[in-house]
């Protein structure tokens, strides 16, 4: 049975069983992955998989179910389970099945060239990357991850209200992590590159960046506990924005799980801060032309020059606030229900280079990396206390590497107290594609010796 036959049969049988509107969400993925270790192919895997979920309105509630086997048995399973699930819901905010937006942006998220690349070429590229890392320094003890993956996916939404949209995309995911050693001192750095255009990927440059970063941490030590002026380096700042981006979700606001409740239209950040979510960014890896409810996506400014402009909405939260959906309805996969999440969200860069930020400080800490974000940060109230690495700055220069420290503060206070926004926008991938330039902050508590 192909997916179209499956869907038609499902809708037909569902009508008979008493469903009002129904929708299927279908996803199909392909993967090639290889890991190189000491010049050898250490891991090689291929996959094709997918799944289908049904959601449908049964006696006024939206029932969900999913299956991975596309066969006749699954039709009955999906309908029975969706009814059972609908029957126990007592949510008052009704989800709806959407008839479609007037038009959708055409996005170029698929590279044929990448698709056609042979597995040998991909393996060679990863080998070259590992090799470059070893060639840069005798202190490189191992390249503990050197992974090349090519991922492609296609998703489709079709419903009984006439909506039928689909989109496909692919990406090369290249992750390298090096371990450097000097005596007993072991340090580690890693870098993830996402691209659809491999001609822009230069193994030598990536190797240099990651090896230099690891080497620069050798000899790191803790530091005296006190408040320091902080330069939050781009990737560290982006990882913080990722954790607290849930505060901009209208669902969290409506449920009292966001500190931004009641702050719409008010100043919540320094006027040098603008936070954008742009689902149409061509080099963004969370780009999409329609969200998981089939709503056309668009660029929004969540915070404009310090003022909280809008929350991220899906159809349900928008109805409740009497606004229109911003196209941020999302599903983790076909197994999920409709949630809310950012796409390509970032703090707009300023003018000051990272080097100039460092030059301006007499004594400060550059925080390059934050760890334990899923446990040491409270996404509701903004508080965090996190393990960190970085450098001590003295008289405008990097003085020495610093580790075994914690940095503690509050995300919303940081937004208010940012003094300078850097020009060096960088992205991290985790529940969205989240970016930030380096941020100069007046001070944060550092815990160390």
């Amino acid at each position, binding site marked *: 049975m192909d997916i179209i036959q499956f869907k038609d049969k499902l809708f037909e049988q569902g009508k008979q069983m008493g469903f009002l509107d129904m929708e299927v969400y279908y996803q199909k993925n392909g993967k090639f992955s290889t890991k190189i*270790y000491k010049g*050898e*192919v*250490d*891991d*090689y*895997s*291929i*996959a*094709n*998989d997918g799944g289908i979920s049904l959601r449908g309105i049964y006696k006024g509630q939206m*029932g969900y*179910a*999913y*299956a*991975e*086997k596309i066969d006749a048995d699954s039709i009955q*399973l*999906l309908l029975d*389970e969706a009814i*059972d*699930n*609908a*029957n*126990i*819901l007592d*949510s008052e905010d009704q989800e709806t099945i959407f008839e479609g937006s007037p038009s959708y942006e055409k996005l170029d998220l698929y590279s044929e060239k990448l698709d056609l690349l042979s597995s040998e070429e991909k393996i060679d590229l990863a080998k070259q990357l590992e090799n470059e890392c070893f060639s840069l320094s005798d202190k490189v003890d*191992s390249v*503990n991850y050197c992974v090349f993956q090519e991922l492609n996916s296609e998703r489709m939404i079709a419903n009984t209200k006439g909506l039928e949209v689909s989109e496909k995309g692919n990406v090369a995911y290249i992750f390298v*992590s090096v*371990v450097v050693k000097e005596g007993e001192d*072991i*340090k*580690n750095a890693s870098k993830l590159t996402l691209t659809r255009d491999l001609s822009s990927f230069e193994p030598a440059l990536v190797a240099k960046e990651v090896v230099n970063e690891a080497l620069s941490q050798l000899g790191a030590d803790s530091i005296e*506990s006190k*408040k320091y002026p902080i330069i939050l380096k781009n990737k560290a700042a982006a990882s913080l924005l990722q954790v607290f981006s849930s505060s901009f979700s209208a669902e969290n606001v409506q*449920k*009292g*799980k966001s500190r931004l409740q009641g702050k719409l239209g008010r100043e919540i950040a320094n006027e040098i801060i603008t936070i954008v979510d742009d689902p149409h960014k061509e080099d963004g890896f969370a780009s999409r032309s329609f969200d998981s409810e089939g709503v056309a996506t668009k660029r929004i400014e969540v915070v404009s020059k310090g003022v909280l402009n809008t929350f991220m909405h899906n159809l349900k939260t928008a109805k409740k606030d009497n606004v229109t959906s911003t196209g941020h309805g999302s599903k983790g996969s076909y*197994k*999920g229900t409709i949630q809310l999440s950012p796409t390509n969200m970032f703090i707009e860069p300023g003018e000051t280079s990272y080097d100039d930020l460092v030059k301006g400080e007499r004594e400060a800490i550059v925080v390059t990396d934050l*760890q*334990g974000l*899923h*446990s*040491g940060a*409270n996404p*509701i*109230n903004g508080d965090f*206390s*996190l*393990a960190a690495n970085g450098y001590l700055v003295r008289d405008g220069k990097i003085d020495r590497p610093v*580790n*075994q420290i*914690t940095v*503690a503060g509050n995300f919303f206070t940081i937004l208010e107290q940012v003094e300078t926004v850097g020009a060096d926008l960088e992205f991290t991938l985790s529940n969205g594609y989240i970016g930030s330039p380096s941020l100069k902050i007046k001070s944060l*508590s550092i*815990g*160390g*010796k």
Partner: protein
Amino acid sequence: MLQQSIIEDLIHASLSTGGDFAEIFVEDKFNSNISLVGGKIENSVSGRDYGIGIRIFQGLNSVYAYTNEHDREKLLAIAAQAAKAIKGGPTNITLDFTRKSFQTRHPILKYPRHVPKTEKVEVIKNVYDIAKNYDEQISQVSVSYLDEDQKVLIANSEGKFVEDQRVRSRLGIQAVATKGTEMQTGFYGPGAHKGFEFFDQIDLNHYGSEAARIAVTMLHADECPSGQFPVIIDNEFGGVIFHEACGHGLEAAAVAKKNSVFADRIGEKVAPDIVTYIDDGTLANEWGSANVDDEGEEARKNVLIENGILKGYLIDKLGARRMGTESTGSSRRESYKYAPTSRMTNTFIASGKSTPEEIIANTEYGIYAKYMGGGSVNPATGDYNFAINEGYIVRDGKIAEPVRGATLIGNGPKTLQKVDMVGNNLAHGQGMCGASSGSIPANVGQPTIRVSEITVGGRKEQ
């Protein structure tokens, strides 16, 4: 789950290019997740995972393929595509499956699929009421419920043919306490390798009120000071630190490539005498248990560190090849979408002699971590970080005022050396452990222990 003849054909196709070992993993799993927010059932999703993983070895090279196709021809095409990654002539083998049957160590009394969802809702609402009514400062309670019924079939070219069924149930209770603009949260997540009987057997009142009590206590707590202090880590989920900071370093995935400080050190002293560290996948109906691992090897009890001496590692088949040794029944994977690797099951520090009261009374000044939160560790360096969910200052041998916002940081093997007291009250807590073979249920456990010095990061003004 899949015809034996198809499995045989898949193994032969996998070995058509020189592979010396092939394994077929078939999974059919039923999942149900229900969540409640603010007293209302907001989400309920259920469904069925089904897929097949094919793994081929040639020496130390490993190839993995997965799919949720179930048609013979399509499966054979995928096996052939995977085999193409290996270069050589066909390996001729005679397949002679020995079907292994066993008495389950983990009997299930109420299979969740046969329990009406309305009964599950009753449990959820019951625990919601307990947490919500605990204190008037509790402003919000969320409860998540899950049950899963995973059937697996594992067959390999060495003739193994084994089936297992793992049924698991878990609750997650999150309470939010509010005072003005202040918000604090408390969490508890009990789970087991059990069916719906789990919720008849546990004291819901205890878990619901603990989640709420943590939130309210933290609402009235001062910020934690920063610095290096003796830290007393309470039993049960407190074991998460040693899970992350030592347990992962004892897995073949790290040891075989010598990416672990514990590599090549069997028989050496790696911890104080009072520390014995064990991984035991046989514990009846525990969250991390199963009858066989995901390579079909029987689960067992592995003593990793005994009285401070390194005794063993957690080893999977590929790790065993690299290390020139045998599997320890420690190979696990989230699903057919992952090649299995060496992982923990139920890992814990064994009980010692001190009473928890003695440990507190012997501490002049320090931090008492009653409940730990999550954390992470850098496997290359052993550096870890963990949040304390409920903490207190210990002053003059007594538990004094509560403190919040504390993070513990340090280096795993070094912290292990600094364990100076081990309590006599071993207990296990439930968690999800993430690594290269996915997110799997794992118990962490320990008695109350004291570490002479850990770096504590807090927000208290210096």
